[in-house]
């Protein structure tokens, strides 16, 4: 065979002969029967397919979509601040929240002492005090929004009612996030039967209309002792129906994030799955969920109002905006417009403001994503 000895010479290497041989082969291939060459001519397409199937390191360049991700929050806030409609919405929400908090003094009472947390009282009257004025009175200087059938001051009731409505929206959405985000992230990250199990539950809940499901859940929850009837029943009912949307949304995001190289890198370094989900997957998948959650506060407030209107949830007579609308229904027939207009306006204003803020957050977090698409998907 060969008698070559490995060289100890150093210097440039140049291979001679291979190219000539390759050239000769090309010539002979060309001249030979085309039927013989069929095997090789089919190569390029196959080879590219083979290559894409094999090489997982061709990492997604989509990671660069986050242009300056480190200072993401600062950048988002700067973009948000430039958005006038969003800032208007935020201002409306802040004003409504401040009004609701300052409407009546907030006190914490124990057996011996009563601590006043908030001494201000913007509302002129106690919202539950009857006959502070004549019943069914139209708006006047003394009662700017008029009075209801029991002579309660509507203005005070709308102000204090903000406490229920705003907090129901925020708390219900927060609870739904606490359930939906972990479940969706786990489903997306692990896949397999875990994914199947969680997502089939989501599908089942999705099959019911949002409001109908909430209506169905309220009577189930009411006998539960710690919840009782009222505020927490509504909140839990809305959270139970609300988490599915977040779970589905974040699962979709996680499916793409978990393919990113930094997740593989974290796994290669032996970081446990729990840490990977918490630190690497969820923070990079959460943006659309934040947008969705903000927009959903509006939807949840509307649903809470609808539940109140239907007489579910909060006890009748409480100053929740939806419940006030329900009570005003009969007086509408008598022509007493002020009983429904003011709580209705309050709901309208709050939901509008929330939607403006939600769109603003969407634009700030993901300038190239169309928030309306997401919303359509959620409905």
């Amino acid at each position, binding site marked *: *065979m060969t008698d070559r000895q490995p060289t100890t*010479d150093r210097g440039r290497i140049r291979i001679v002969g291979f190219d000539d041989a390759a050239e000769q082969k090309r010539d002979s291939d060309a001249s030979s029967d085309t039927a013989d060459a069929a095997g090789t001519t089919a190569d390029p397409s196959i080879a590219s397919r083979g290559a894409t199937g094999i090489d997982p390191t061709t990492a997604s360049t989509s990671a660069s979509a986050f242009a300056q991700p*480190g200072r993401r929050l600062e950048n988002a806030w700067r973009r948000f601040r430039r958005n006038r409609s969003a800032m208007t919405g935020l201002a409306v929400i802040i004003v409504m929240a401040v009004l609701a908090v300052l409407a009546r003094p907030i006190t914490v009472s124990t057996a011996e002492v009563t601590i006043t947390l908030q001494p201000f009282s913007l509302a002129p009257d106690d919202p539950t005090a009857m006959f502070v004025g004549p019943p069914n009175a139209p708006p006047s200087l003394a009662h700017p929004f008029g009075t209801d059938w029991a002579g309660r001051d509507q203005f005070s009731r709308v102000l204090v009612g903000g406490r229920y409505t705003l907090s129901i929206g925020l708390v219900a959405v927060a609870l739904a996030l606490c359930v939906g985000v972990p479940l969706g992230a786990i489903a997306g990250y692990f896949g397999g039967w875990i994914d199947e199990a969680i997502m089939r539950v989501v599908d089942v809940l999705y099959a019911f209309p949002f409001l109908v499901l909430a209506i169905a859940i309220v009577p189930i929850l009411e006998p539960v002792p710690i919840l009782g009837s009222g505020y927490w029943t509504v909140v839990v009912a809305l959270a139970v129906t609300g988490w599915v949307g977040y779970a589905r949304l974040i699962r979709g995001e996680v499916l793409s994030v978990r393919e990113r190289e930094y997740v593989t*890198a*974290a796994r290669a370094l032996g970081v446990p799955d729990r840490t990977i989900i918490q630190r690497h997957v969820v*923070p*990079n998948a959460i943006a659309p969920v934040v947008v969705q959650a903000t927009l959903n506060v509006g939807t949840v407030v509307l649903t809470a109002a609808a539940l109140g209107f239907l007489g579910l949830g909060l006890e009748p007579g409480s100053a929740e905006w939806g419940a006030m609308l329900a009570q005003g229904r009969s007086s509408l027939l008598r022509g007493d417009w002020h009983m429904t207009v003011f709580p209705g306006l309050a709901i309208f204003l709050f939901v509008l403001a929330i939607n403006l803020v939600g769109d603003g957050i969407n634009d700030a977090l993901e300038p190239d994503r169309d928030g309306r698409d997401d919303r359509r998907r959620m409905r």
Partner: protein
Amino acid sequence: MALLEVDDLVVQYYTDDGVVRAVDGISYEIRAGETVGLVGESGAGKSAASRAVLRLLDGAGEIVGGEIRFRGRDILELSVDDLRAIRGDEIAMVFQDAGAVFNPVYTVGEQIAETIRTHKDVTDSEARDRTIALIDRVGIPNPAARYADYPHELSGGMQQRAVIAMALACDPAVLICDEPTTGLDVTVQAGILELLAELAATSETAIQLVTHDLGVVAELCDRVLVQYAGEIVERAPVDDLYYDPKHPYTVGLLAATPQLGDDRERLPTIPGTAPDLIDPPTGCRFHPRCPYAEDCCASRRPSLVDPVSGRPDNGDPETHVAACLEYTGDLEAGLDYEVQVRDAADSDCRERKQQGEPR
């Protein structure tokens, strides 16, 4: 006993078009402290083979056969927790795309420190100090300030250095570098290679370097494995491979390396493209592209043999073996190429010729 032994590893990917055998029965070993290159063109299964070592194949990929023994323990048999303990601590990986390896929402330092905290029982400030020392060790200036930088605030070269720092966080016994210099410009590449060479020289860490760049291999490696279409076709100490290549594929790769001062008009290429691994060629997988192929190449599959004696691979990693029928005496025309070594000083050619009749 070698530190890492890969024995008859088979990796398959399941695609819509069929089963891709990306790695088809490769065996190699890495001993403590040495640097081994794994070269081949895109789609040869280099990355699949390397990721399989840490069981990092995602989704469609699966290890269907073989053994990977690290310090005598079969990695494929380890429980999830044992495997996690090895990942990063004993065997670490340097990925190709440094920009994608770091999570964009945390600082570089935090991510390196995370690895240390995962494997070592340290306080946060200890992890921080150690991270800063690591950043310093890989040659990034002003390490304390860089600790608090986000990944996008580093340049490509610094990112790659930071990735190496992250891989080195727990002083691994084996460092698998998956194309660490691809996508960097040449001067930065040189810096990274210097860093790796210094690591290889000063630490006990064994390096498995996966690349398609023969120049990188020549600079860094002690031994080289040439992979083609999922198989290892040649294994040699680094000098032997360059000055005395035995497999026609290796010869083609060397011939296709561009050189400064080359007087040829066209860069020689290996004809054809990498084969489809769903339905690989029969016999020798290189035969459809091999200029020296004969009829028997399409039907007989060569195994790794000693090119001088023609005897099968005896398992000693230092021996030069190649998988070509030439060395078992089955080719009639032989291989017709020569290796010219030119001095850098003048163009005085000393030629040696591969034996075999010209066509």
